[in-house]
Structure formats: C-alpha cells, structure tokens
C-alpha cells in the first residue's frame, strides 16, 4: 500500500481499489462508509477530549495557574477521567419536561457538528466528502445545532433554560449572516465553493495575504461572528453562567450534558478549521511568491501539520478572546451584528467584487 504523508490520495485510492477487488461494489461502498464513519467518530472523540484539555491549560496559563496536572503526565488524562465520571453519573430527567425532545436535543447538537466534520479537508486527499458546494454545506449543517439548543431550552421546563435558548436563537440567527458574508468574500476571490478548489487556489499565497485589506477585514469578521455563532465567550449569552447559571443546559446531567459540552468544543474546532481552510490556505504550506528556496523548505513540512497548526492557532485566538473579555449584553450583541458587522461586511463584499472584477488581487 503506497503511503505518502504529503499526499493521502494514493493511500485512499489503494484502499478503494482493494475493497472493490475483494467485494461486490455495493458491499465495498458500505464498507467504505463504515470505515470512514468509524475513523471520524474516533477522531471526533479524541479531538473533543483534548480540546477541553487544551482550553483548560490555555486558560490556566493566562490566569497564573498550572491547570490540570494530576491525572497522568501534565494532566494529559484528566479529560478522559472526566469523561468516565460523566458517563457514570445519573441522567436526571425533569418532571413535566418534554421527555422526547429533552432526550433528543443533545444528539441534534452532536449530529450537526458531526456532519460538518465530514467536509473538512485535513490534508491532500484526506477528506470524507468533497462537495462542490463545500462552504455552503458546512454553513448549512453547522447551523442545525441551534435547533438542538432551542429544543433543550424549551423541553427542560425551566425558566433559566428557556431564556438561554431564546438568547441563543436570536444570536445564532443574526450572526449566521455575517459568517456567510465573510465566507462569501473568499468564494468571490476563488470563484468556487468547493473546499479543495479554494485550497488549490491558495498554492501561491493565502487569501488573507492575497486579498489585501478586505480579506483581512472579512477574516476578523469571520472570527468574531463565528465565535458568536458557537456560543463562546464573550458571546456566551446562552450559557451566561453568572446570569442564567448554565443557560440552556441547566437541567442536563451526566453524559447528556457532556454531549452539549463536546458539541461546543467540536463547533469551535469546525469553525477554526473552516477559517484555516478558507483564509489561511488549509493544508497548503506557506508560500511567498517566487522565493523558491523558502517555498521548498515550507513544502517539506507535511500538509497535515500545516492544517493542524493553523487550526490550533485560530482556536487559540478564540480561547484568548474568551478568557480576556467580559460578556456582552443581549442588546449590545445584536447591535454589534446589525450596526457594525453587517454593514461593514456588505461594503467589504462590494469592494472585493470590484477588486476581483478589476483583477487587482495577487494571482
């Protein structure tokens, strides 16, 4: 089996041919689905757990603490221990709660983020599906999660939860616009919604550099709006632990709570990888114009490291925001979106279209 860390398409193709040679096509297809599903599931669990660990460490260092350091070396197994604890906790169901919706809600959140992961290109040839409308798909799928949050708030039969859910609804619906428009700017640049094409178009430089200032503005707007969309601080009004105790998941316990928790972190990962893919070139190494020597050195680092490096950098930025800023109030949150982000975004898109029409961006 050919294995090349710089290009996974050979490996995947070899597996594909092997399966089709051994089985009838239908079974081969189903086996492939199962394998991909399993791998993504495993990846999801591991990434989710270690994102929690990463966040706890990052915030600890920002706050003059050491963070988890008891379970395993540097506390590396802390989140696994937490998971075991959460698995063994009692699942409390509220009297007079809407049982069906109450039980379904965490799964909707999980499924939304799970579906979004499928379209992420991790390295060359390493993605589950490569839609020709990849960006659109990611946005559409990741916003299903809010239904889970709304259901959780509604079905809990708790006033705190309901307020949290309503806040979340208002927030996600408005910030979806800015996320979409910010992504649209790169779609205009690259002329495609397919994630692999967008990455290929950044071989000679990332869009954040090639697109001049408008691209930087849309990157910043994307960061702000997506932080709001995934309900993280300073936009964590849906949880708002100092106001609503825990917001929409006040009444959840045990592994159901863990699903919400995991969903939040996975959404952060998805948003970060989308930003990395669209603005920072995904797995594409850093290339500067015609500096051949420099570009060759950069090529030497495998794409998967590039991808994870960029994603972790953006996740660090999101964490940095969360652990520095105080929370906004709901009216200020909406003011920020409708009075600042959206108008700036629209003007920005106009400028970008003009730049693309005139061909002024670096090709």
């Amino acid at each position: 089996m050919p294995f090349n860390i710089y290009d996974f398409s050979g490996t995947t193709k070899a597996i594909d041919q092997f399966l089709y040679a051994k089985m009838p096509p239908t079974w081969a297809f189903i086996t492939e689905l199962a394998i991909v599903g399993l791998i993504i599931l495993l990846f999801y669990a591991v990434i989710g757990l270690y994102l929690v660990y990463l966040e706890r460490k990052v915030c600890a260092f920002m706050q003059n603490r050491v963070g988890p350091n008891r379970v395993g070396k540097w506390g590396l197994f802390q989140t696994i221990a937490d998971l075991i604890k959460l698995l063994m906790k009692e699942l409390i169901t509220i009297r007079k709660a809407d049982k069906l919706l109450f039980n379904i809600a965490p799964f909707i959140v999980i499924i939304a983020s799970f579906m979004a992961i499928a379209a992420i290109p991790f390295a060359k040839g390493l993605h589950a599906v490569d839609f020709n409308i990849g960006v659109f798909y990611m946005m559409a799928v990741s916003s299903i999660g809010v239904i889970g949050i709304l259901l959780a708030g509604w079905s809990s039969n708790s006033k705190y939860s309901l307020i949290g859910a309503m806040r979340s609804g208002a927030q996600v619906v408005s910030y979806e616009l800015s996320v979409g428009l910010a992504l649209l700017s790169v779609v205009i640049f690259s002329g495609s919604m397919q994630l692999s094409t967008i990455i290929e178009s950044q071989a000679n430089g990332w869009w954040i550099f090639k697109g001049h200032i408008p691209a930087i503005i849309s990157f910043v707007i994307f960061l702000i709006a997506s932080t709001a969309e995934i309900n993280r601080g300073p936009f964590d009004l849906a949880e708002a632990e100092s106001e609503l105790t825990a917001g929409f998941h006040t009444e959840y316990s045990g592994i159901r709570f863990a699903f919400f928790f995991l969903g939040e972190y996975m959404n952060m990962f998805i948003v970060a990888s989308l930003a990395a893919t669209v603005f920072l070139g995904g797995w594409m190494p850093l290339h500067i114009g015609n500096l051949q020597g420099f570009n060759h050195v950069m090529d030497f680092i495998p794409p998967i490291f590039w991808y994870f490096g960029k994603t972790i950098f953006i996740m660090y930025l999101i964490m940095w925001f969360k652990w520095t800023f105080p929370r906004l109030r709901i009216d200020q949150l909406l003011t920020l979106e409708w009075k600042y982000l959206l108008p700036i975004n629209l003007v920005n898109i106009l400028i970008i279209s003009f730049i693309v029409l005139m061909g002024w961006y670096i090709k």
Partner: protein
Amino acid sequence: MNSVGKYFSDIFYGLKSLWKGLMVTGYYFVHPKQIVTQQYPENRKELKMFDRFKGELILAHDENNFHHCNGCGICQLNCPNGSIEIIADSVPNEDGKAERIIDKHIYHLSMCTFCALCVKSCPSNALAFSQEFEHAVFDRNKLTKVLNQPGSRIKKEPKEPKAPKPPTDTVPKSNPAN
C-alpha cells in the same frame, strides 16, 4: 459626516481597548514563571505555617511531661462558645491540703472560632496555638480533644525561671487585658 467619523472612531477605540486587554492575558500566557499555584500535598515538607498561625489550641508540655495549667478555669469562662471544658480534681499535696489540679482539659475543635481569648487570658501562660492545620477527620468525636497528656503534671517551681515553651508569639507577653 461627523456621525460617520464617530462610527469609525468608535470601532477603532473599541478594537484598541480590546487589544490592551488581550496583551495582559497574552503576557501571562507566555510567562509561565509568574504562576503562583502551590502544589499542596507535594509541598507538605516545605510548607511551614507562620509562627503565630492559629491552628489548634494546645496545652504546652515540656519534655518531662509537665505543663503549666492549674485548672483555674479562666479560659473556660472567657471562651465565647463553650469550646473549652475544664474538669478539675482536687488531690492532697505534700502539706496535706487539698489542691486543685487539672483532671481533663477538654477542647472542642469543632466549636472553636480561634478568637484567641483563652490564650490571652490564661494567667499562667499554659495555653498556646500550634501550627497544625490538617484537621480533617472521618469521625466528629475525634475533634473533641483532651489537651493534657496522660500522666502529665503541673510544673511547680515558682523560683525557677519559666520553663521552655514552644516558640510561639501568640502568647502575649503583657498582662491579660481581659
């Protein structure tokens, strides 16, 4: 035009103020030397409480199992919440007179508020605070302590200078103000 200018200056002012805050947390993120956390169970050996730390009440005993308490009960009177009980006994001394000595000096740690009135009011400077702070037990009865050790006796050499006591500054040098 003025409002447009204000719109943009608001944005830049906001971004600048946010950046300032980010720099503070960013500074600590890259300076792990500033971490102040103490690793408690590991640093047990180096962890030394201050001399005056009010850990728990003790009746100071010297190496020959002598203490200074004559069972007068002033500490019991001064305790605001009844955490000290004195059970005194009377035994005949060499002259044949009945003399009040201490049988049990009972101290309820669970009720103590560490106001130090007992230590301050003790006329014979018998009481002191130790620096012990790990008080957790599984049985509440263990928090009721008998402070005089079994077989201990009162030290009666008025001519001699004061017997060595554990070095604690909590015991006031001056007269009890109470």
